[in-house]
């Protein structure tokens, strides 16, 4: 198992807690709204294939939340600065749910450090009319029940055995998630029209039984991004990366090989 390094990186005047593990092509992973778990099976297996660089978003995990960061748009600028500070090149930028929303906003602004973009079960855009809520409201459900919406089998996460520190971290994550996404409900009304600016190869991975954003929503997301590919993962919900970890990572590997001829390690660039 690859060793995991924790560090604090400063980007756009925000201190970010960063978890890094593995070798290979740099893969920046942007976590969903409940935060980053570097000890998860998904993270461990991902680090077998890539040089995984996973920051906690501002206000999540051990990362600061300064006054000037209150929106996903703000965070996208923080992360563009983050990529520049680490001098990352030919990056595979992968986001899940909230992380995918942030990744999409980043890619509408600047893609020159990216080899490819993977948006998994992304929230963040609106396609339907004003009478229709397309994204399940993750704030109208108590945090301890969110697993019912996230997982294919609807299981709730176990919290009873976690330490107070771990639980407070999760509670703070949820608080920051609401700061970013309370209203408009889990989306930026302008994002849809900006998705056409994305000019890197893009893969949209979607849980076939996603109860937060349906595969149809995902297809509409893909339709706005030129040349993007939409792929379903069967027997998976909103957290397809956890429901079908092997298949999810296999798709990432395949996509990574397609977007450039050979993988480039960070150390080779530096």
């Amino acid at each position: 198992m690859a060793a995991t390094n924790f560090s604090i990186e400063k980007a756009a005047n925000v201190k970010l807690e960063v978890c890094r593990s593995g070798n290979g092509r740099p893969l920046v992973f942007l976590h969903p709204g409940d935060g980053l778990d570097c000890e998860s099976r998904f993270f461990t297996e991902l680090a077998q294939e890539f040089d995984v660089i996973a920051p906690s978003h501002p206000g999540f995990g051990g990362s600061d939340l300064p006054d000037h960061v209150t929106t996903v748009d703000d965070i996208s600028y923080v992360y563009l600065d983050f990529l520049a500070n680490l001098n990352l090149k030919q990056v595979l930028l992968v986001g899940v749910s909230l992380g995918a929303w942030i990744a999409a906003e980043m890619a509408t602004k600047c893609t020159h450090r990216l080899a490819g973009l993977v948006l998994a079960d992304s929230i963040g855009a609106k396609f339907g009319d004003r009478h229709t809520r397309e994204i399940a409201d993750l704030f109208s459900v108590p945090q301890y029940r969110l697993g019912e919406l996230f997982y294919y089998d609807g299981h709730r996460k176990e919290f009873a055995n976690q330490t107070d520190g771990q639980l407070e971290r999760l509670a703070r994550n949820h608080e920051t998630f609401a700061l970013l996404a309370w209203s408009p409900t889990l989306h930026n009304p302008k994002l849809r029209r900006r998705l056409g600016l994305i000019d890197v190869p893009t893969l949209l991975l979607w849980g076939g039984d996603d109860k937060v954003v349906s595969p149809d929503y995902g297809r509409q997301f893909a339709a706005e991004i030129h040349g993007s590919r939409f792929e379903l993962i069967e027997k998976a919900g909103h957290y397809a990366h956890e429901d079908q970890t092997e298949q999810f990572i296999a798709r990432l590997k395949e996509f990574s090989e397609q977007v450039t001829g050979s993988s480039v390690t960070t150390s080779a660039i530096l």
Partner: protein
Amino acid sequence: MQTWYFSEQSYHPAWEQVKGDIRINTSSDVVDPAVAHQLLKRYMDEWVVADELGFDIMVNEHHATHTCMSVSCMLTLSILANRTKKARLLALGVPLLNRYDPFRIAEEIAYVDMMSGGRLEVGLVKGTPFELYVSNANPSHSMGRYWEAHDLIEKALTHQSGPFSWEGENFHYRYVNVIPRCFQQPRPPMWLTTLSASTAAEAARRNMVLAITASAPTARGAYPLYRQEYMKIFQKPAGLDKLAFLGYVGIAKDRATGLARGQKVLKFVEATERTSPNFIMPPGIMPPSGAAKMLKAGEVRSHRTRVLPDGTPMSSKPLVGEYIKNSVMFSGTPDDVFNQLKEFYDSVDGFGHFLMQMGGTLTSEETVDSLELFAREVAPRLRELTNGKFVTH
């Protein structure tokens, strides 16, 4: 002591008609327009009676709920400003977290204060957390927005030399200019409700009246903090007029009827419990340490006290006897009500305002009879209790 009569203007027929939740995600088609119209008129008439009997008056507001038809304190008070003559009129309160336009709030305060000839008192409260699902204002990191709105309203009411601009973190105005200004100069007395120690101290620093609603343990914790902070800031003890307590009252000539009335009042509390757990604690309303406890427990609960003073768990439905033991219900004969209030009053070193909530499923006749009895046999003794210790605003 001043006694303020308060009821929530409920549409209580729905409590029987609706199965399940009666807040946020209930429907309005159960509201019979003729019945609701009569109820609203009745509630106004009861406040007029209260005014004639020497009570002061408290009103509130809630949203998307059959427990309270008042959707705006200031709408209700603009009616009462005309229909009453002497009573002080307390809005407790205007929920700042739910409102997007503090300037408009300042204008309405000034209007009602002017209309009433300076009888208004105002609590600018945060609001019931689950109603943020209705207003859609962000609950996360909202205390900054609350205090900015509060500061802006205070400045809008007291700055009387032409417009000022406001370029804050949450609110932006080119010209803030409230006309007419308030009748009371520079502004009406301000109140604050809280469940937290830090807000109690802030209320003292700002020289506001601190109101604790229906929780004796909170009063026991918050009053000393308020007094301590007040002494530190103003170098003199806080007058009793700075502290208020809201409790329920069921009163009649004989004890059995009084207790039965108390039980009818508690039908309101029972109704308020019918709120989906999905909405009770929106994200960010509770600090992470508190939210972590709910995560661990795998359930959310309202802030209602669940145990008796000796630690015994309370019954699942509110019972008048248990509420008396917890000093949130004062019920029985006039002597019983006075003695229970006196005991609680002594246990917290006194307070100057008793916010008397009735309502529930009491009929109009029962309400008026209760008001008359309280005015005749309890209120004079309560006034005597604070005689000489009461500093008016």
